[in-house]
């Protein structure tokens, strides 16, 4: 498992980071934290159980960037969160399709369309401890988004490995 994860990490590391939203790029540049890339091929590799539903979910995804920022360490305020949301909608033409708050955690979902098709999806979540951003190039079947979170959650050791690498 660890070996596979390392291969995935290496594969991801050699991919270019182009075509991501500028707002996410700037956020990553400005703040230290966990930054993960999942490309279509790497996503397929994570699907070790060869789950067909998972394959369907990722078929229209070109790339996913996942950021996790420690809000306290990075002094990321509520005003910063508000500005980040505005940057996605005003500077990047994303449209908010959902927002919510659950157990003190705010969640916002945005999409950007071109030619009637979804070309990008942003899922943001923030609580008093952390900020999470999923910047998806392409489209995720929203009804299957739960599976994506599950995948990232089940592969949290990837994040831990990277976090460790950052610290080392």
């Amino acid at each position: 498992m660890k070996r596979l994860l390392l291969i995935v990490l290496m594969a991801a590391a050699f991919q270019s980071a182009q075509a991501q939203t500028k707002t996410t790029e700037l956020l990553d540049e400005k703040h230290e934290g966990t930054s993960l890339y999942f490309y279509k091929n790497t996503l397929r590799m994570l699907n070790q159980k060869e789950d067909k539903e998972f394959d369907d979910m990722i078929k229209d995804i070109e790339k996913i960037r996942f950021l996790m920022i420690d809000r306290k360490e990075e002094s990321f305020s509520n005003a910063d969160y508000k500005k980040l949301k505005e940057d996605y909608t005003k500077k990047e033409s994303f449209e908010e399709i959902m927002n919510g708050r659950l157990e003190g955690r705010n969640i916002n979902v945005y999409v950007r369309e071109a030619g009637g098709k979804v070309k990008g999806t942003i899922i943001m979540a923030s609580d008093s401890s952390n900020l999470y951003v999923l910047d998806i190039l392409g489209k995720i079947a929203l009804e299957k988004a739960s599976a994506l979170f599950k995948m990232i959650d089940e592969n949290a050791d990837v994040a831990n490995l990277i976090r460790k690498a950052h610290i080392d």
Partner: protein
Amino acid sequence: MKTLMVGAVMMVMSIGAFAQGDAITKFFAKYQDDETFSQVTISSKMFSLLTDMQIDDPEDKEVIDAISKLKGLRILAKDDSRDGRVLYKEALALLPTKDYEELMSVRDDDKDMKFFIRSGTGTAKIAELVMVMGGNDDFMVMSLFGEIDLKQIGKIGSKMDIHGLDHLNKLDDKKKDKH
């Protein structure tokens, strides 16, 4: 991370807000920034994206068709709260009886629920469905608006994991019993 996932799943599966009655808007405005409340707001765009789903089952297609006519959903909820019944009464008092017609009342364990509808114009016979629920330790108000097909709402509630909407299936059951 687990709680992030659960939160996101619940919200994404249950899925801004637009064209509601004034009363319910004021109630949401009063409490939406109160962090002791959970809230979800879903736009018509989200509903339209859900209709892109590839569906084979005819019954599911009917539900998706009903979802495509929805314009928005707002939920405001408070769990583990002792003021569930106080909030329930406050929300009910704010609903103008001239605009909203009571559809159904349900008592489920320690919870009271009331469903209201607001009539629409044109093709939308029902423009808004409001559910208010209050119990000994929780409270929820939900406003679903757009072109609403009551026959499908119970199924939409099941798809979106909105507890309480399943009671609307009883309306259909009662009709069947009469025939």
